[in-house]
């Protein structure tokens, strides 16, 4: 009774941003969790339609920024006042005013790197292989295609019923992706 192929996801195409938004609401109401709505650009109102929480990225970047600024201040203070004290034009060894510039620069630098790296991490990227790429039709998402995908790891997933459900909410070109 071993199956050759295992269903991994169901993909359905929708006509335009409005249809995708309504589809998202219905998929969300039906109780699916492991689903996503693919579009060439972010659609306003989609987070609400999908019941998505706000990204935690801001808090992560803010924390890193705070630590980076204080860390760089401390580092400059340590090198200038403790490890290698050097009197220059009579300025105090711990000239916090002048340390602010490099601390600010390092804060911006580390925050920007954190924002990009953590964003990719939260998105599970880079991930070059994904079952959705099995579909020949899916490539349209980056041009003018609007798709809903429901993954098999969702407890409500059923390879036939999920397809019927997507059809009932107006999905076209429904595909069962197997591997």
């Amino acid at each position, binding site marked *: 009774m071993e199956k050759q192929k295992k269903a991994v996801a169901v993909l359905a195409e929708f006509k*335009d*941003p*409005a*249809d*995708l*938004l309504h589809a*998202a609401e219905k998929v969300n109401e039906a109780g699916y969790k492991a689903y*996503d*709505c*693919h*579009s*060439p*650009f*972010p*659609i*306003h*109102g*989609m987070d*609400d339609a999908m019941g*998505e929480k*706000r*990204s935690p*990225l*801001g808090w992560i970047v803010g924390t890193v920024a705070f630590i980076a600024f204080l860390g760089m201040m401390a*580092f*400059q203070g340590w*090198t*200038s006042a403790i*490890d*290698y004290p*050097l009197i*220059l034009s009579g300025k105090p060894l711990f000239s916090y005013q*002048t*340390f602010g*510039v*490099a601390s600010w*620069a*390092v804060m*911006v*630098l580390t*925050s*920007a790197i954190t*924002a*990009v790296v*953590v*964003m990719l991490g*939260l*998105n599970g*990227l*880079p991930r*070059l*292989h*994904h079952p959705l790429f099995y579909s020949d039709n899916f*490539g*349209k*998402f*980056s*041009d*003018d295609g609007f798709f809903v*995908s429901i993954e098999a790891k969702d407890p409500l997933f059923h390879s036939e019923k999920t397809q019927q459900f997507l059809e009932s909410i107006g999905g076209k070109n429904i595909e069962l992706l197997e591997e």
Partner: protein
Amino acid sequence: MSKEVDTGYDYQVPLITGNQTFSTITDKISSIVESKTTKEWALLFGLASSLMMVMLGSIGYLIWEGIGIWGVNNPVGWGWAIVNFVFWVGIGHAGTLISAVLFLFRQKWRTSINRFAEAMTIFAVICALVFPGIHIGRVWAVYYFFPIPNQMDMWPNFRSPLLWDFFAVGTYFTVSLLFWYTGLIPDLATLRDRAKNSLRKKVLAIFALGWRGGNKQWKHYELAYLLLAGLSTPLVLSVHSVVSTDFATSVIPGWHTTIFPPYFVAGAIFSGFAMVMTLALIARRVYHLEHILTLTHLENMNKIILTTGMMVGYAYSMEFFIAWYSGNPYESFIFVERAFGQYAWAYWTMITCNVFIPQIFWSRKMRRSIPVMFVISIFVNIGMWFERFVIIVSSLAQDFLPSSWDYFSPTVWDVALMVGSFGLFFTLFLLFIRHLPMVAMAEIKGVLPQANPHHAHEGETH
């Protein structure tokens, strides 16, 4: 972000003309990258890369022989290298203003120009970073800049503005690169999904990082983009302010003024927009982007050029006023000498290009005339190079001791490096427009009327 009422979809004048759909945008922009290399491109690339070789050759000779090959002397120890550095850093600022500040202010017209303005920023900062690197004379000691433990058990002097500069410009470059690449990810995915050739598909797939455009990805992506815009916005103000402290914290008359940071920032945005304009007009003509880069976009940029040009003009006159009002004889002397002394030719070139000529933009007809704006943008570029020359050289040439006064004349190596830096800039820029989408497709689609989820229903009632 998702909860706010967004009215940006409705325009009296459409942002993108020609009844575009999502797929016409994709085709238009992607086909530029996917089509065969044209003869014109090859010719321009040959010209630009030859100039770049002139620069690389000059750098080689400079490292071999030392900075004595330049026209620098005593007292003019900072010559064209620093002029070029400040000029190129300034050029970059328009890209950051367009990509970050206009994004935060929800100026949706920026979507047509932000990608190549950001590219311009990165390439301009690369050109800028060359000059302080080679100006230090002993290039092999450049690691002294970095706060790393070394054999001398020494640390850099964090109280020096030259070191602030290193941190400010280094950060600026890295953040601009990250911002640009983040914006490119969805467009690289578009190119990946269109690629026919298997190698091309694989290479693009790697750089697109497996982007799938799911809303669960867009959610984090949009916040990351917003954060990068928020982080870059203060950089528009901070980077050139820090560059100006290289001058303002010294005691040289003509440099030692508190107006320098805002004055430099306004000048940077002014020159940067002029450079964006020059490049945009050429790209628009060559690649037929008239529907995407409309006269409205160009007019908006011309308004910014007019505004910042007058801010710069105000700074020029305020410098003179303060020189007189301070009652400092050295300060007054330098400014009278600037306008009427040995560098008067440079000073009046600057004033003509930066203050007088942009006034033409008060006329709406002139603001919307392609040949006029092209010529003015070139004048502004020239004028802003002269501004840095005037500030740096005229202040140094006549210092406190009349017996050491001298006149700076550039040598052939100064000219070769300056012209060569344009070669480096255009080489990088040509590679960019040949291989990467020069307009942000995903962002353009997002400002089309049909991107609004409520658009379809309104459309049905027509």
